[in-house]
């Protein structure tokens, strides 16, 4: 009798897990990505993101963190696996199509990304940078786009820079503009790829404050960063990505305080020592 | 098209063309020798502290870089004998014109190369206690030559193409012989195509070699 109950319990918990997956905001399964025949960066990576999650991805160089984000944005062709967002199919590998993936462009429009080296358009003004995509790709009128842009610039304290060119801004200012540019398109998910790594230390804070602001507004985020203090502050979950897979996954307290895997421990020790 | 393509006539005149080619190659080679050495000397003059050396050198460079090569050739051909009361062999006048042109462009190439040497190297020389002469000889010169080499080669190829202009003052180079042959045989298409291919066959390997050297240099320095 008890064995039948146990069996029922087990099947119930399995269906709970699959229900959890069905509710997951982002679901990544079996992601594989190689550069050429020898360099396998992602080796069957699985990751789920719950609604409202802010995931910080930490890990060693070459472990696949940035590649993961780039795949999430649809910037890389994946060799295998699939990604869903909000229950909809987003990206899936299609080996039959000679390496071009199935990419749902409507879903892609709901994802925004900020890069390590700002990647603003140098020949446009700040206002031009912010409004280009809205006006040209979303069919929003120039006045509406400019109004929204000025609103964002004011929120970030950069409204006096609207007519300036990127070359006239500091790194921190450029990065905040890059974030505003992504926000112009009202994304449902924001990806941040080492956005403070290229900044002078005194400029890091202004960018991280903006990201914390976004966190307060419940913006779902996936963040790759080296700044462990910031990770603890902003993340709802921290994942340790190494060797092309997620090695460990937990809340900041769990992962930083009591890492379960040895690899995680080793990495954290090195990082903490290197920082001092 | 009422024209039968027939390269036979070109091949009959191949001796003429080869004579012309010899003149072209001699013109180019001589001009390159003068151009590479003269260019360096003029560059030193341009970069010197003395105004007496710098200003004439700068004027010379600008004149020869901002006027057509054709007018330089024609000017030397018609004016030098009259002005200086000398009779010069046409070949010599051709070399003179092409060399002066090449010297001007090469001087600029050397100057850009010297200025491209990172200041850090000069600082290192001071830190190592080298005299100015030693610095010039062992640090600046080798690097300047290496940096300038691609441009010097490009300029040499360019002077090779420009040498065709001496045909206009009736120097019997490849271009001149080609034009002569085309009128003799009434076969401009074959003749001019063949002559163009002759120029190309010489220029192409040099251009390829130069870009390969440039790539190796870039790889070695990144």
């Amino acid at each position: 009798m008890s064995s039948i109950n146990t069996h029922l319990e087990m099947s119930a918990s399995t269906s709970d897990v699959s229900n959890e997956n069905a509710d997951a905001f982002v679901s990544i399964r079996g992601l594989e990505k190689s550069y050429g025949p020898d360099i396998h960066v992602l080796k069957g990576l699985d990751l789920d993101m719950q609604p409202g999650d802010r995931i910080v991805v930490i890990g060693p160089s070459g472990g696949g963190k940035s590649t993961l984000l780039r795949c999430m944005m649809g910037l890389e062709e994946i060799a295998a696996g699939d990604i869903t967002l909000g229950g909809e199919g987003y990206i899936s590998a299609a080996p039959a199509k000679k390496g071009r993936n199935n990419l749902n462009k409507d879903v892609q429009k709901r994802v925004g990304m900020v890069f390590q080296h700002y990647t603003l358009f140098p020949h446009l003004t700040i206002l031009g940078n912010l409004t280009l995509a809205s006006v040209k790709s979303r069919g929003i009128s120039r006045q509406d786009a400019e109004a929204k842009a000025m609103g964002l610039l004011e929120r970030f304290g950069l409204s006096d820079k609207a007519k300036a060119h990127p070359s006239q801004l500091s790194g921190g200012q450029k990065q905040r503009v890059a974030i505003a540019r992504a926000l112009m398109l009202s994304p449902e998910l924001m990806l941040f790829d080492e956005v403070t790594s290229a900044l002078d230390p005194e400029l890091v804070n202004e960018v991280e404050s903006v990201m914390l602001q976004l966190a307060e507004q419940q913006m779902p985020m996936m963040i790759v960063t080296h700044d462990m203090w910031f990770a603890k502050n902003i993340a709802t979950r921290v994942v340790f990505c190494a060797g092309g897979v997620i090695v460990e996954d937990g809340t900041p307290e769990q992962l930083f305080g009591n890492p379960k895997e040895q690899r995680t421990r080793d990495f954290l020790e090195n990082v903490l020592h290197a920082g001092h | 098209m009422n024209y039968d393509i027939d390269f036979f006539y070109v091949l009959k005149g191949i001796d003429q063309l080869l004579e012309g080619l010899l003149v072209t190659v001699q013109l180019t080679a001589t001009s390159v020798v003068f151009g590479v050495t003269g260019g360096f000397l003029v560059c030193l003059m341009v970069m010197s502290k003395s105004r007496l050396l710098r200003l004439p050198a700068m004027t010379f460079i600008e004149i020869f870089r901002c006027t057509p090569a054709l007018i330089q050739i024609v000017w030397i051909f018609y004016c030098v004998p009259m002005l200086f009361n000398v009779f010069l062999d046409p070949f010599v006048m051709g070399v003179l014109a092409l060399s002066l042109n090449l010297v001007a462009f090469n001087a600029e190439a050397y100057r850009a190369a010297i200025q491209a040497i990172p200041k850090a190297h000069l600082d290192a020389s001071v830190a190592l206690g080298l005299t100015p002469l030693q610095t010039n000889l062992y640090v600046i010169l080798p690097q300047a030559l290496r940096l300038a080499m691609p441009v010097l080669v490009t300029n040499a190829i360019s002077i090779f193409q420009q040498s065709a202009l001496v045909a206009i003052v009736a120097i019997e180079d490849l271009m001149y012989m080609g034009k002569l042959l085309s009128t003799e045989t009434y076969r401009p298409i074959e003749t001019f195509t063949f002559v163009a291919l002759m120029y190309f066959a010489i220029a192409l390997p040099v251009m390829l070699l130069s870009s390969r050297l440039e790539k190796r240099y870039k790889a070695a320095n990144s």
Partner: protein
Amino acid sequence: MTYTIDFLFLLEYWDALLGGLITSLQVTGLCLLLGLGLGFLVSLMRISNNKLIFAASTVYVELFRGTPVLIQLFWIFFCLPLILGTEISNFTSAVIALTLYMGAISSETFRASLLSIDNDQSDACVALGLGPLTKIMYVILPQAVLRAVPTLLSNTVSLFKESALVSAVGMADLMYIGQNISSVTAKPVEMLTAVAFIYFIIAFPLTRSVSMLERKLIHKIAI
């Protein structure tokens, strides 16, 4: 025979020289516009993945960079009429030849500037959901053109200098007029010097403007 230099007689011929200069400038201007358009198209072909397009455009560029402009001009002037079966004026053949020349050298300039634009810019366009046409017209092209301007100015000066060759096919440009008058008056020193001087006062400011432009552009847009 000593030669007495007398520059005053030049004033008699100033209108002929002006006419020649205008012809030179017209040819240069026309071939500049046509050549830039051609050069840009060819540069796109040179970065295409299609092997046939790449090969054809590469052969064109290498041929026109690897042979003397004079022979290109002679070929067009003497051979093209025979191939097409019609007569071609020296003006037309000059324009065709110089356009093809300018197309070849400017295509290299455009190609270099297109290739110098970071891949990051493409990434940003994907992240912002910009379509391919928008990306080319509003992001890539403006940057490529701005980066190419200094070198294109140098290419223009080269074109202006090569335009002197059209005198060899009998076009009454500045060079032709100058040579004519100097042989008619037997005063080559004054006349040819004057002609050289006229070429110089047009080419020299153009070359100076290159460095000035580079400084201003780089200062403002950091491209």
